Structure formats: structure tokens, C-alpha cells
């Protein structure tokens, strides 16, 4: 009983609870049909949101005003880079993934360079950067119709007993991210900066380096996500990352991470990502029109945020 109470006190449990509720509602509608397949599909789609969500979580944890708006453009460009480097050749998969990662890291580094050199809010810096990246992508990826190598496409769609392998790997990755956040100097520095940047600086935290690493990490995860998305959807696309602007921020906040910074929640990102994907599946199953689906998605996001409540800033 006591363990149940501590479990309920954890903010991330609610996002899983919401996901479960949406799943049950859908199954009730279909009469139990397709429940398992729905979880498989939700897991494979949630993976992409979780990967960028974790990057966004680290950035948001840095404190008020920190957010990476360049992720959609980053994902789009990285998907094109990965497909061009792999060029449909199985032998080039690793090289293509590395190229996408490098592309993302470069974007993250440029983001921080703008923030640091121009002393502008991260929102404007990442926004301006995303304009430029978008153009590079449009020009670079024009008419790009390279299919992913068969081995890579199979890998991103690979399932074992109905569980996508990519989802298992992503769970391991998120556990790693949790350890980095809570147990390593870098993660503790991110949390300290988010709680009070001046106090962190006085305590000897290397603020500049930590912020640089965080934006680069977010960029790298965006790049990786772009490559994986191109594999999963069998091709790169300028618009492939568009939905991840809202999704990456929403999963972080719904998952219980504080927007005021200094308080991150890794498991919540998974719960919130599953919740959002299942929600979309549910609305599709109910057969509502695009307009109604958008309105309901928006209202539910606002509703969840309102129910979860904002936290008071820590100072």
C-alpha cells in the first residue's frame, strides 16, 4: 500500500495512466479487436517522439527560455543527409547514421554559438537557425527520392514478439539518459543551472560548456531521429519533422518536467509520447474528420497541462 502511494506521488505515472485510458477507450470502441497491434504501432511511433523529447527535455531543464525550436528543420535535413550518404547501400548504413548525427550536432553547436555570441534568447536563436536550415534542406533535398537501404528499413521496422526492437533500444537509451541526468556530473550540472544559473556558476559549474553540450546533444538526437524516421517511412522529406516541434515540447511538459527548469523527468517522456500517439490512433479509429481531430488534440493537450498544473518557479 505504501509503495502504491509513493508510485502515485510520482508525476510521470499520470501520463502512463492517460495512455492506458486512451488505449482502453479505443479497445472498447473496437470491441477488443486490434488491441495488441495498436500497442505495437504506438511503440514504434512513440520511439521517434521519445528520442527528440529527451533532447528537448535536457534543453528545457536548463531553465526558463531554453527551448530548441530548430528540431523540425534539423530532423528534415538529417533525414536527407542520411539517405544521400547511405544511397540505398547496406554497407553505408553506419556511415549514414554517423553523418546524420554529425549534421545534427553541427546544428546544435551553431544554435549555441548564436545564443552565446549574440546573447539572444534561445527561442529566437533556434528559430532563426531553423529558417536557414530549412532553406538548406529545401535546396539540398530537392527531388530527393532515394530509398533507404533495405537492411536499414528492415531494422527500423524489426519486431520481436510484437515489440519493435527500436523501442527496446530506445528504452535502454532513456535509462541511460536517466542515469546521465541523475548520477553524472554533466546531468547534475544541467539540473543545477536550471535551478539557479548564478548559484551554479558560483558553485563552480562550467555553465558555458554544459549549455553548449546540451544544445549539441539535442541537435545530435534530432539528427539521429531524422535518419531513423527516413528509414521507417522509407524516404527523406522536408516536412518529415514538422510534427515534432509540438510533440517534443508537449511530451516533456506532460511527462512532468518543469518548464521553469531544474527538474526533469525521463520516464514521463515515454508515458507522454505513448499517450499522444495512442490519442491520435483513438481519434483515427473513431473516424473523426481532420478538423475535429486537430481540435480535440489541441483541447486535450491544453486540458492535460491544466490538470497537471504548472509548477512554481524554484526561486
Amino acid at each position, binding site marked *: 500500500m505504501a509503495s502504491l502511494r509513493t508510485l502515485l506521488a510520482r508525476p510521470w505515472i499520470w501520463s502512463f495512466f492517460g495512455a492506458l485510458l486512451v488505449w482502453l477507450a479505443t479497445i472498447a470502441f473496437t470491441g477488443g479487436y486490434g488491441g495488441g497491434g495498436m500497442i505495437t504501432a504506438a511503440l514504434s511511433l512513440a520511439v521517434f517522439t521519445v528520442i527528440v523529447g529527451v533532447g528537448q527535455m535536457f534543453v528545457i531543464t536548463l531553465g526558463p527560455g531554453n*527551448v530548441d525550436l530548430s528540431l523540425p528543420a534539423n530532423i528534415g535535413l538529417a533525414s536527407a543527409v542520411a539517405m544521400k550518404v547511405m544511397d540505398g547501400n547496406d554497407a553505408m548504413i553506419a556511415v549514414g547514421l554517423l553523418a546524420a548525427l554529425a549534421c545534427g550536432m553541427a546544428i546544435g553547436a551553431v544554435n549555441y554559438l548564436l545564443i552565446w555570441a549574440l546573447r539572444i534568447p534561445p527561442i*529566437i536563436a533556434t528559430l532563426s537557425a531553423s529558417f536557414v536550415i530549412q532553406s538548406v534542406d529545401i535546396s539540398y533535398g530537392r527531388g530527393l527520392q532515394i530509398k533507404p537501404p533495405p537492411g536499414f528499413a528492415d531494422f527500423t521496422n524489426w519486431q520481436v514478439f510484437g515489440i519493435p526492437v527500436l523501442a527496446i533500444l530506445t528504452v535502454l537509451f532513456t535509462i541511460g539518459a536517466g542515469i546521465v541526468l541523475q548520477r553524472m556530473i554533466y546531468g547534475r550540472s544541467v539540473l543545477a543551472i536550471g535551478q539557479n544559473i548564478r548559484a551554479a556558476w558560483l558553485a563552480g559549474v562550467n555553465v558555458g560548456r554544459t549549455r553548449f553540450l546540451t544544445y549539441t546533444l539535442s541537435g545530435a538526437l534530432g539528427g539521429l531521429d531524422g535518419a531513423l524516421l527516413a528509414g521507417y517511412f522509407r524516404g527523406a522529406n522536408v516536412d518529415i519533422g514538422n510534427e515534432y516541434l509540438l510533440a517534443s*515540447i508537449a511530451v516533456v*511538459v506532460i511527462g512532468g518536467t518543469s518548464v521553469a527548469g531544474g527538474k526533469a523527468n525521463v520516464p514521463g517522456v515515454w508515458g507522454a509520447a505513448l499517450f499522444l500517439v495512442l490519442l491520435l490512433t483513438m481519434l483515427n479509429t473513431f473516424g473523426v474528420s481532420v478538423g475535429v481531430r*486537430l481540435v480535440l488534440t489541441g483541447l486535450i493537450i*491544453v486540458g492535460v497541462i491544466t490538470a497537471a498544473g504548472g509548477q512554481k518557479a524554484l526561486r
Partner: protein
Amino acid sequence: MLRSLLPALSLALVLIAIAWLNPRAISYFGFSLMLNLAIPIALATIAQMFVIAGNELDLSIGTFVGFVGCVTATWLKDAPLLGVVILLGSIGVYALLGALIHLRNLPSIVVTLGMSFVWQGMAILILPKPGGKAPDWLLALMAFKPPFIPFPIVAALLIAAVVHFGLMRTSYGVILRGSGGNSAALKRAGWSLLRTKIALFALTGLFGVLSGMALIGITTSADANIGNGYTLLSIAGVILGGGEFVGGRVSPIGAVIGALTLALAASPLLTFMHIPPDWQVAANGAILIIVLAARVLISRRER
């Protein structure tokens, strides 16, 4: 001193570039054409400026402008009374959002991102396919041709003057900006922060409605996605105009100038420079970065 002149300076720079590339563009007719879309952009920028004055951000203004556009091109023409009620109701929704954000201490970025879906969905429900038609009085208003000075410039001056007076010269304007500058002090002085937040969001809704109506008066018909680009344009316009994200430091005149700069830099300048369409978005980003870099250099010297 130089810092407050920067928005005007960047506008002058863009104008000089245009005059140099294509002298014929600097005429009554040229400005009417080039600044065609400046009025809705300026209104959307002012809308964004109000929430920024309260340290918030509205990521839904673009789809809201699109929603208003769809209402304007359908109900406002066919059933004016219903149309007016819907538009007033949507301003009410904005006011409620302000109250919600304040009472529950919610992040405005997430709430407005969620709302951007709601507005877009409703726009699609109203107008599934591009179409509709602007009311005749609106068409006549937007096609107005005053003597000597092109209408967009007259309208921009008018918008800047009215908002400048309201926000910078009246005592409640000071309170509104103060809610972003030092909310704790304002609260101790006995002002209701809930009320200032509601007022700022309602003003954003009001100017969002004006922006959507002006846009449809120019384009004559609507499309659910017509305003999507305005979210980023409006934020960029406020920042170009010397506004800051925190501290209630905004400037209505600067915001209008920022919007004009963006409207000119967005396509006329780039077309004259023969920049291919692929790179026009990048050019916008680059202009933004250059202006912000100039601002850093200037404020460093002034220190």
C-alpha cells in the same frame, strides 16, 4: 540612443537596398504593391507584442489569424451578426486563456501550442477547401487609395500611433508593461495580476482578429492555412523592433517598423536581388541574425 534607432535603421537599410536595386519600386504604386501584406503582418506583430509585454509567448497567433480569416470569408459575409459574435467570442477565448495561464501558472508556450491545433482544426471545419469571399465593405476598405501616401503606410502609422499612445502613454499601459517588468512590485502595489494577464491576452486576440480581417480584405478569399507563417513572423517582428522576451520591454512603434522591415525583406528585396525562392526563408533568418548581431555590437559600445 543608437539602440532605439536600430529598428528604423534596419528598415532604412532595406529601403536603400531596394531603391538601389530597383529605383522604380520607390513610388506610390511600388510601395502599395510591396507593402501589400504589411498591414496584417503589422497587426499580428502588435498582437504578439502584447503577450510578450507580459513575459508570455503566443505560438497560436498564426493559426488564429487563419481561423479569423475563414470566419471573415464565410460567416461575416453571409451572416454578419453571427460572424461578429464568433469573432468577439474568440477574443473572449483569448481572455480566458490568459486567466487560465495565470491561475494555474501554466507555460504559455505549451498552452498556445495546443491552441494552435484548436484554431487550425476549427478553420478546417469552417472552410475545408480554400474559398469563401471577403465582405464588400472590407474589400473597399483595404482597396482605399489615399492621395500622396500609399494606404499601407498610412495604416502602419495609424496602428503605431494608436498602440503607442495606449501602451506607452496611458497609466494602465504602464501597469500592463509593469506586469512583465516586475510583477511582484505590481502585486504589492495592489494591482491584480490576473486582470493584467487577461487584458494582455484579450488585446492579443483583438489584434489577431484585426489581422485576420485585414488579410482577407487583401486576399479576397480564405484558406485554413493562410496565416500559418504569421506565428514566426510576428515573433521576429517584435524582436526586430527592439522588444525583449522578458521584462515588459516592448515598443509598439518598433514592432510596426519591424513588421514593415520583414514584409519588405521577405519578398520584394529578395526578388530584386534575384535570390531563388529556395533560399528566401534562409535570407529571412539571416536578416534576423544580422540585426540581432548589430544590436549586440551597439549595446556593447554604449555600455
